[in-house]
């Protein structure tokens, strides 16, 4: 149940991530989340709060750094690795070092409590609603930032708001797939969908469908074997993406770099 709502939110956000060429930032945010969670564990508060603080903070920083693509990738990476470095510091200061790290990194969806489910569901719904409100201006500024800006769309603020939403999603999705594999749920369905259709509405629906499918199947498969859930989701995600990518020669040109100067 918790997985489903998260999956939907992730898929939708992922669509925009792919379009805006921010996939690396998505990966970075999930790694930053790790540091947040570790820090929270160290201080003794539930990991979710640490996650939220760090990821939202990082997303704001990332939105404000670097305009050119080349430099942006590096800057995002620096933020990410520094946060990760902090993460490992926190963890080593904490005694239950490795086990805790493992569970944060790889997810523990099969051990989620009722409360967690409710919190997750609420957050995810908020994210979906938030995205719904932002949807049109966000689309506009993702595809055509110059014109959007001229029309009065607050392109920059939107960029920041969007990344904050991503940060929230990351914090929530951690429980499903763990930090390392959030990318797979965020980007996989969206990337696959984008290969199959260029109509935004259809792409988003397809992404949602795929994300849900991966999550349910993943949980099912993992429940019956010893293998981790996140592995199944990652494999399904990639396994579907690969043939789609290879078989659909349709190429948009620089499809992941549509808006070069916005974040």
């Amino acid at each position, binding site marked *: 149940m918790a997985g489903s709502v998260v999956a939907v939110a992730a898929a939708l956000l992922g669509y925009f991530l*792919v379009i805006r*060429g921010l*996939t*690396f930032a998505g*990966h970075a945010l999930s*790694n930053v989340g790790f540091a947040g969670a570790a820090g929270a564990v160290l201080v003794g508060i539930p990991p979710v709060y640490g996650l939220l603080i760090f990821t939202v903070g990082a997303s704001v920083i990332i939105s404000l750094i670097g305009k*050119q*693509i*080349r430099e942006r*990738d*590096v800057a995002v*990476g*620096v933020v*990410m*690795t*520094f946060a*990760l*470095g*902090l993460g*490992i*510091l926190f*963890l*080593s*200061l904490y005694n239950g*070092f*490795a*086990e805790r*790290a*493992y569970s944060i*990194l*790889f997810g523990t969806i099969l051990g989620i409590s009722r409360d967690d489910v409710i919190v997750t569901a609420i957050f995810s719904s908020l994210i979906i609603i938030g995205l719904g409100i932002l949807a049109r201006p966000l689309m506009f500024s993702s595809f055509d930032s110059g014109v959007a800006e001229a029309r009065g769309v607050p392109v920059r603020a939107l960029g920041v708001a969007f990344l904050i939403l991503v940060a929230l999603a990351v914090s929530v999705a951690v429980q499903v797939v763990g930090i*390392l*594999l959030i*990318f*797979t749920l965020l*980007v*996989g369905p969206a*990337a696959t969908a*984008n290969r199959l259709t260029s109509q935004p509405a259809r792409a988003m629906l397809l992404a949602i469908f795929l994300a849900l499918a991966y999550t349910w199947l993943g949980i099912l498969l993992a429940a019956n074997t*010893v*293998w*981790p859930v*996140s*592995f*199944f*989701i*990652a*494999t399904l*995600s*990639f396994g579907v*993406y*690969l043939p789609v*990518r290879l078989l659909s020669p349709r190429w948009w040109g*620089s*499809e*992941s*770099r549509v808006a070069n100067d916005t974040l």
Partner: protein
Amino acid sequence: MTLFDLLRQEFVQNAFLSGTIIALVSGIVGYFIILRGQAFATETLSHVGFAGAAGAALIGVNSLVGMFFLTVITATGMGALGKRLKGRDVEVGMVLSFMLGLGVLFLSLYTQNASHAVNLLFGSILSVTREDVVLTIGSSAFVLITLIVLYRPLLFASLDPIVAEARGVSVQFLSILFLLILALTVSQAVEVVGTLLVFALLIVPAASAVHLTSRPFSALILAVAISLFSTWGGLVLSLIGHQPASFYIVAITSFFYVFSRVFRRFYYPRRYREPLHPSREI
């Protein structure tokens, strides 16, 4: 124990030996990664390395060998597929997460012991064996010699591929070669700082260096210097402070990066002109 006592211990010697060589190579390769804009490919290869190491542990082979193997294969694939992989981050990212998933699988099959995972992810320079050191020297020598031979054409092809091709440089061939070198270097860097932090050792020093100078050779030397300094500093601090070496290394390189950006903004303010729109001429 003083530092000198520590240095007499084999594991410390191994750590410094490996660390130095790897930092040296990483600085040089990192410079080219920055020029070619292949930061994300580097990140991917490090995750591939993770899967390779985990898989190797599963079948009982030295993890470095496992990493070499899988990263080289992936690098060849990447080379064959894309011209320069610049901006192809969706594809590359998908491979990344899949590899991570594989690694997770292998690990969980191999051991439910989480500390092995942490070592792979965050580095274990202080548990490097003599055997590893030998492997490192071997592959680093190969990488260094190749880079020396390829220096000029690689620089040319990375910065000016169209004219380079016209001048007889086989740009595609060099791209594949470079990815192979990258694969080997990444695998080694994983040993020092782990999968998740490869970026810090490979890319950040070079990124800082290019902010400070535009002369190719100077940037290269600077990248190596920062990389070496961070690694040594990290090792020393780790031995004194008992926290993981990778944290200190990352912290030091991050500091250099921030410093380089700040320095550049204040020391060369005129270099911060807004980029000219290509169709507007002065």
